[in-house]
């Protein structure tokens, strides 16, 4: 190339192109992540844990569920519920769907779902089981009393024992590594004190292996920092009971 042409090529073509590419890279790196959440929600906690596992910076927005924000109603018009993950302005609703989304977008770090399709299917199966059984049966424990509560306790403990059986002697549900099913279940630990106190029973006594698993999970920063204090949750439950006239 002719000497006199090189600086011109650099100035007019290469430099702007390189600057443009660099600028574009900076743009993609500045992801905007917002989480609409409610502090005692185990579903919200799942998303908090996933974001923390991946080291993603995000803005946490606390919602008052008695006075839902226009943003929440806009981002989740179908269910009007938290958690809502908003990534660069686009909403992802339903906690387990958001966790999978986070795993797929930020795929180069701390995988949450296993890579083998059969293991993934098992993980989804158990997460689905947790979704269908734990919240509803746990709620019945603190919402009822007498005979109804005894039934509710039996059902709730039954589900926990089923999960404990699935855990077996593994460190985590997926094996050696903390993963999807652990993320799905461990947030309910923040409600254990409330369930136990309202129902007069001990989860440790019923499911010691599960409690050992809880302790292992709580050693992770992502989990410890995403779960509220159990006593704070219990106070919240007492308020709810008062509000709904459940004594």
């Amino acid at each position, binding site marked *: 190339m002719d000497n006199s042409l090189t600086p011109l090529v650099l100035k007019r073509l290469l430099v702007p192109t390189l600057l443009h590419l660099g600028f574009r890279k900076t743009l993609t790196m500045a992801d905007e992540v917002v989480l609409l959440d409610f502090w005692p929600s185990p579903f919200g906690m799942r998303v908090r844990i996933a974001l923390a596992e991946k080291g993603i910076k995000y803005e946490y927005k606390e919602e008052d569920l008695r006075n839902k924000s226009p943003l929440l109603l806009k981002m989740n018009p*179908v269910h009007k519920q938290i958690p809502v993950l908003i*990534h660069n302005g*686009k909403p*992802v*609703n*339903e906690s387990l*769907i*958001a966790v*999978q*989304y986070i795993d*797929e*977008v930020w795929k180069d770090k701390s995988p949450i779902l296993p890579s083998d*399709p*059969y293991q*993934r*299917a*098992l993980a*989804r*199966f158990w997460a*689905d*089981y947790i979704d269908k059984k734990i919240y509803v049966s746990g709620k019945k424990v603190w919402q009822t009393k007498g005979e109804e509560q005894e039934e509710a306790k039996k059902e709730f403990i039954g589900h926990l024992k*089923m999960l404990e059986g699935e855990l077996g002697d593994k460190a985590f549900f997926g094996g050696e590594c903390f993963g999807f099913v652990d993320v799905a279940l461990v947030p309910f630990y923040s409600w254990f004190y409330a369930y136990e106190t309202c129902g007069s029973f001990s989860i440790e006594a019923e499911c010691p292996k599960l409690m050992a698993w809880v302790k292992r999970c709580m050693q992770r920063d992502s989990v410890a920092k995403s779960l509220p204090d159990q006593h704070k949750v219990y106070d919240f439950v007492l308020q709810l009971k008062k509000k709904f006239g459940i004594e």
Partner: protein
Amino acid sequence: MAEEVKLFGLWGSPFSRRVEIALKIKGVKYEYIEDDLQNKSALLLKYNPVHKKVPVLLHNGKPIAESLVLLEYIDETWEGNPNLPPDPYERAQARFWAKFIDEKCLPALWKALFGEESEQEKAMEEALQNLKMLEKELKDKRLFGGGGGGGGGGGEESIGLVDIAANFIAYWVGIIQEAVGAEILNRERFPVLYKWIDELLSCSVIRENLPPRDKMLAYFISRVQAAKASK
């Protein structure tokens, strides 16, 4: 190693048929085993001890249950004609609507058609609302899509997770309505949804994997009669 795929299903179950559709779209050869609900087979109890329900897929001896879990498993295990798109955001949307169908649409429709009389009116309202939301999501797409080469193109390769999950709405609701003598879904109320139903049922892989209409209708009529007799 020769691959062994077995499906425990039920001829009239939309959940079971979802899995068959997904396997057929991928061209997977499988052995179908009809389960007898009244007398759940020992095999079913062995392979799905948690829920004791069909469908259950056995792939080289390893069991998997729950139809939506199975649709994703099938997508990830066998290549070609994917039912989920590659983009994470679009996958999240597809999963959202499939879940909405299973957790909101189906229970409301079932209650509106078969529930206690006291519950039916409220369930009907909810079912109508849910169907409206689903219709809104369809917009002007021919299929919910997201499968194959992307939505909008039509044809079997564009059938997506949501289309398969909504099979109950496309086929069973019409039959049950006739058996029960109710009407929730009709062309006037839901023109966009009906266009989708026409499009979906025009796909041979869907049509060929549905239970025969007269047999299904007879089944629901007998259920209605049994329910009346027990009152």
